[in-house]
């Protein structure tokens, strides 16, 4: 895992590829992001492995994971749907969109579907206020969401 990550994070100078594979603390977040991308969450075991590699205490790793809202130590759904709750989105009706998602997925915000496919969350402004109401599904930004589109979106990611 660790080696793999070092390969991905690198600088390219001209045609020659140089990998910055330093085992410094500053690599912590990119490593955690990669684990999260692959597994959907960061387990206790992974935290220990990362701590060993960077020569820090695992609780340091834990403290970083719990600080950031896009890192999590419990398993979430395969796809995470995040609904922006900034004022521009709320004025554009994001609460209705949220209800549509809750109805369609049969879960409440903060929960994960039984089949483990979707988690539904609220998040701070996602920088899509010009296309409000907007949501994020995994890393994809989707604007101008309507009640009709909700089902299409779920179908697309299912």
């Amino acid at each position: 895992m660790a080696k793999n990550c070092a390969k991905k994070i690198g600088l390219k100078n001209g045609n020659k590829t140089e990998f910055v594979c330093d085992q410094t603390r500053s690599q912590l977040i990119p490593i955690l992001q990669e684990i999260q991308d692959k597994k959907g969450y960061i387990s206790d075991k992974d935290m220990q492995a990362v701590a060993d590699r960077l020569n820090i205490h695992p609780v340091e790793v834990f403290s970083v994971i719990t600080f950031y809202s896009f890192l999590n130590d419990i398993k979430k759904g395969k796809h995470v749907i995040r609904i922006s709750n900034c004022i521009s989105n709320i004025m554009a009706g994001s609460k209705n969109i949220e209800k549509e998602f809750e109805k369609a997925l049969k879960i409440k915000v903060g929960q994960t579907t039984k089949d483990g496919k979707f988690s539904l969350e609220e998040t701070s402004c996602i920088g899509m206020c010009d296309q409000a109401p907007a949501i994020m599904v995994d890393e994809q930004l989707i604007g101008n969401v309507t009640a009709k589109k909700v089902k299409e979106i779920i179908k697309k990611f299912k």
Partner: protein
Amino acid sequence: MKTNRQGPVIFSDIEVSKGLKKALSMGRVEVLDVVRDSNLRGRGGAGFPTGVKWNLAATANSGQKYVVCNADEGEPGTFKDRVLLTEIPRLVFEGMVIGAFAIGANKGFLYLRGEYKSLLSSLNKELDRMRKDGDLGKDIKGKKGFDFDIEIRLGVGAYVCGEETALIESLEGNRGESRNRPPFPVNTGYNGYPTIVNNVETFVAVVHIVAKGADWFKGIGTEKSSGSKLLSISGDCKKPGVYEVAFGASINDIIKLAQANNPKAVQIGGASGICIPKDQFNRKIGYEDLSTGGSVIIFGQKRNLIDVAENFLRFFKEESCGQCTPCREGIPVLLESIKKIKKGLGKKQDINEIFTLCETMQLASKCGLGQSAPNAFVSIIENFKKDYKLAK
């Protein structure tokens, strides 16, 4: 560049690499001079003079220096960096290269907010193109000894990381908790080395300034605020979007641009900004009056602004990093009081007490988040008395 937008500075025409070539032909000192003479100030909202920042980093004695582009735009209602990084990323990176040349850095980071992860692959492609063109890498554009490269780091969903010292903490692999200042990043930044942290828009402005001159730039805007500002306009209007206006544009001008019909109020500067009532719509965007990172949220006549204040305070409660007391403890108290006011249970005396707390937060919080968290609350309570009733 491939953007179809028009504007006085950021969206004005420019050839790729023109600014960089000119910077390299001018030399370091001259680049620093032109940036200083242009009176360019930080476009993230705080408005620190870019020339001063760069000079401090350039004169710092260190073998290692860093350039950081702050693309962690998390302020509710801003999305201008998303547009810049989608449409003209090359100019952003070029501005970073010019900054690196000016201060003597050989490594740069673009700290991209996690929400914009979908832009990552196209940004990396742009960096590859620049490496091929010799705009990044070793001996950039044939300038012997000028090596510089950029690495993109993804944010992880924390608003506070838009604050420069918190951003540096995050780059170093720590919780995004802001640092005490001084020392400032220009001498003690990333891993303790001199670092400049500038906004995406600032870097684009630098490219234009270097290519077109400080006088050209100073000819746009007002006496105290040179140049232009990108505004991210959203809310109750027909045409939300990113607009570039010269400094000195009034709120009335903005309302016209976005085609808003008789709005009740305009929030300038997002959650950390202030709410402007109709009788002040002649106020102007600029460092002498309304200094902003560019978030403009328009509220129609039917909106109750107490709800707006509550939304902002919920946001701050979620995003406060929790390390300093005024911010961590103050925000929940403000949130409780706004809920009380909403129910009609707030008394005049309570509000006076809360205002004293707001003052404490503005003075004693460690970073901009806590210092600016009460702004919207105070301006809404003061300016929109019709939106709430006090208990007797």
